[in-house]
């Protein structure tokens, strides 16, 4: 027996019922330690797995989408930004030299940070399509108690290429970047996924809608918001969704935001002014638009919210080179319930119809089929 061997701790020795100084003693000690070590390995793996779920935003394909956009950046003429309502733009119907960088549950600070990075890399950009939903002016991911908001902000930092940090958001920035280093999405699958195959789960409670990789993307890989199930959408289902899901959630969200930051509208407006200035410096035309919503949603949304958006947009579009178009009440889209996946998001069919109807004429006669 090797003299360098540590004896088993007494409690463990008692449990294992071993007598001191034997090879059985030695083997038991080794087995206990190995088991503890392996437990540590699994424990660390589980922590990383949970971190990955934090970073594994409901849009798992965001990283690839952004990388694809960056490859095409020097050639792009039109860029779509915004939150999940950016999915209202059907990229294939706008023209080939177009890209989208909208991310689920983005706020305007994140959009500004994206544009600070992207605009210098898009010398041919002439139009920015900015989706302004009714909730855009009330959305502040850093200033909230809702746990999913910090997740969104961390996810934003975790994305390539490493957008500038927003307003001293050190903690989220650090966690987002570290999480990328520790839980590389492209590395997780081949190395870790087999270990966690049974326990894996997609995303968390993501605000703003769901995106699934399955069967949900435009030709350029831009994902679609998809329905929670495969049943055909009807007016009745839209009404139910608006009444029981979307409207209550949005109302709670707005209340939470205003409670934590009564000046949130002024703050987001200031950001939008900076975005406009950034674009004007580069001669980029800014087209704000509100996408079509279902009738039940429109009828239930807070009128004050609609009025605030209209007021702010009117103020911004008083500047040269800035436009605002309110397509929220687009009858041609709203009359067909299958144009929607839920009360406030267009389906692929609806996005294509809306883009051809309203956006393609807006962004220039040569955009389509270019």
């Amino acid at each position: 027996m090797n003299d360098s061997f540590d004896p088993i701790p007494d409690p463990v020795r008692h449990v294992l019922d071993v007598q001191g100084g034997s090879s059985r003693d030695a083997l038991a000690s080794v087995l206990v330690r190995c088991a503890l070590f392996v437990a540590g390995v699994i424990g660390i793996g589980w922590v990383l797995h949970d971190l990955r779920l934090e970073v594994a935003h409901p849009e798992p394909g965001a990283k690839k989408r952004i990388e694809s956009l960056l490859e095409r950046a020097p050639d792009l003429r039109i860029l779509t930004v915004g939150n999940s309502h950016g999915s209202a733009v059907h990229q294939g119907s706008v023209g080939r030299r177009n890209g989208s960088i909208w991310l689920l549950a983005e706020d305007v600070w994140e959009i500004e940070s994206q544009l600070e990075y992207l605009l210098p890399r898009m010398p041919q950009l002439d139009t920015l399509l900015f989706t302004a939903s009714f909730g855009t002016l009330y959305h502040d991911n850093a200033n909230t108690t809702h746990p999913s908001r910090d997740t969104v902000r961390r996810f934003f930092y975790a994305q390539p290429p490493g957008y500038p940090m927003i307003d001293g958001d050190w903690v989220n920035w650090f966690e987002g970047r570290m999480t990328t280093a520790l839980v590389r999405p492209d590395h997780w699958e081949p190395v870790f996924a087999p270990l966690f195959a049974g326990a894996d789960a997609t995303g968390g409670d993501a605000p703003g809608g769901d995106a699934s990789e399955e069967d949900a993307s435009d030709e350029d890989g831009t994902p679609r918001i998809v329905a929670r199930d495969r049943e055909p959408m009807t007016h009745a289902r839209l009404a139910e969704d608006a009444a029981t899901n979307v409207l209550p959630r949005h109302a709670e969200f707005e209340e939470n935001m205003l409670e934590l930051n009564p000046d949130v509208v002024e703050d987001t407006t200031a950001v939008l002014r900076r975005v406009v200035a950034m674009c004007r410096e580069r001669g980029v035309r800014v087209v704000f638009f509100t996408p079509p919503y279902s009738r039940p949603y429109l009828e239930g949304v807070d009128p004050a919210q609609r009025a605030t958006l209209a007021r702010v947009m009117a103020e911004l579009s008083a500047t040269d080179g800035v436009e605002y178009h309110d397509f929220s009440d687009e009858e041609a889209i709203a009359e067909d319930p299958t144009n929607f996946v839920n009360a406030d998001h267009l389906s692929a069919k609806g996005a294509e119809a809306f883009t051809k109807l309203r956006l393609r004429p807006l962004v220039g006669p040569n955009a389509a089929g270019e």
Partner: protein
Amino acid sequence: MLFTSLEFVFFLPLVVCAYYLLPQRARWGLLLAASYYFYASWRVDFLVLIVASTLVDYAAGLAMGGDTERPGRKKWLWASLGVNLGLLFTFKYFAFFTDSLAWGLGGLGIQFDSPAFDLILPVGISFYTFQTLSYTIDVYRGQKEPERHLGIFALYVSFFPQLVAGPIERSTSLMPQMYERHGFDWVRIRLGLTQVLLGFFKKVVIADRLALYVDEVYANSGDYAGAPMWIATYFFAIQVYCDFAGYSDIAIGSARCMGYKLVTNFKRPYLADSFKSFWERWHISLTMWFRDYVYFALGGSRKGRLRTYFNILALFTLCGLWHGARWNCVLWGTANGVYLVMGQLTRDAQDRWARLVGLHKVPLVRKVLAILFTFTLFVVSLMIWRSETIPNAITNIGLAFSSGANSLSVTAPMAGYELSLAVIALALLLALEIAQERKDSELLEEFNAKPRWIRWPVYYAGLYSVLIFGVFDLREFVYFQF
């Protein structure tokens, strides 16, 4: 089966557990079966060659016997040399020889069509051939009694931790260990596993990551000139070191788990302050083999200065040839021989120059400069090795020394994230190597003696560094081509 594959991660613990569960008399059988299985996992027909080599040398050893006065011993030595070197020549050098002959005769206007044999180079043939030859030569010289146990001898030839890429072991060192009883020693096993983990880190975190940069630059050398070419070649120097040293660590660590002590193969070669020192630290088992069986046979340094320099050049040219059946490798070897000879010739001049510029007053500065100079000269020779052909090597050297005005930037070959990781990992390795150099001791053994609260976080960090930051495209070890 690569060391860095999932199969090996399961294979090693299974073999080690079975090893300790079996009685001593059965262990050689287990290891032999495991070694043949390990080798056959590449190609089953490779086994034919290693078994043939084993049987020939076993018979030659017995025939020569222990009596150096016995008549007729030399023919058995020649038989062993003939068979082993013949196999090596056939599989590794035949095409090189015939192509070179065709080229040479073509230059003289003589048409010669080199025969096309599509022979796959058996993995590790250069290593186990040298290992078996060392046995027969030692028996011939009377330095080793012939081994009578065929199984033990076969295991000596095929021992899986060092079979395919060394270290090249001597029969006087490894064979006696096969008769020793290795008791279950957890501290030793732990040390072995730690060394295996270090080997994995060097290979998949450093070597395979740097290979991404090196391959990109050398595959598109026309787009990279100046700094990127230099950086790629420096990276290649580190890649080949971490690749080979990483493999050696895994080999030595694996053997250690079963109580076998293999020779240290690398001793921080890039911290050498002269080429003499460098080749005492780089691939030590090969250098010692060439010294003991070639250099001394040529007369060593006993026949005057000129003959010594000739022997050195011949030795390193052969060493280059061993590294690859390509004229680039031969030239690389010769270049290193030239470095060594020049180092000896200019030793006094170097001392005088150091005194002239005052470096003798600052020995640390002199040492650092000497280390950097030695490393850079080795890197320049590696440009020859890494290039596809000699004209390509000349072009690449030219590109390295050009201004690089139209070159892509130094960050073009690799994503910033990957490059940052590579630099951080390199910095860690350099710190470890400097610490080991200063203490001139095995830090791993000292670390292994530390309490658990120090060791376990390092184990976890190392393991997850390999899992998270490792490049797992199962790139073969560079030295497998030998």
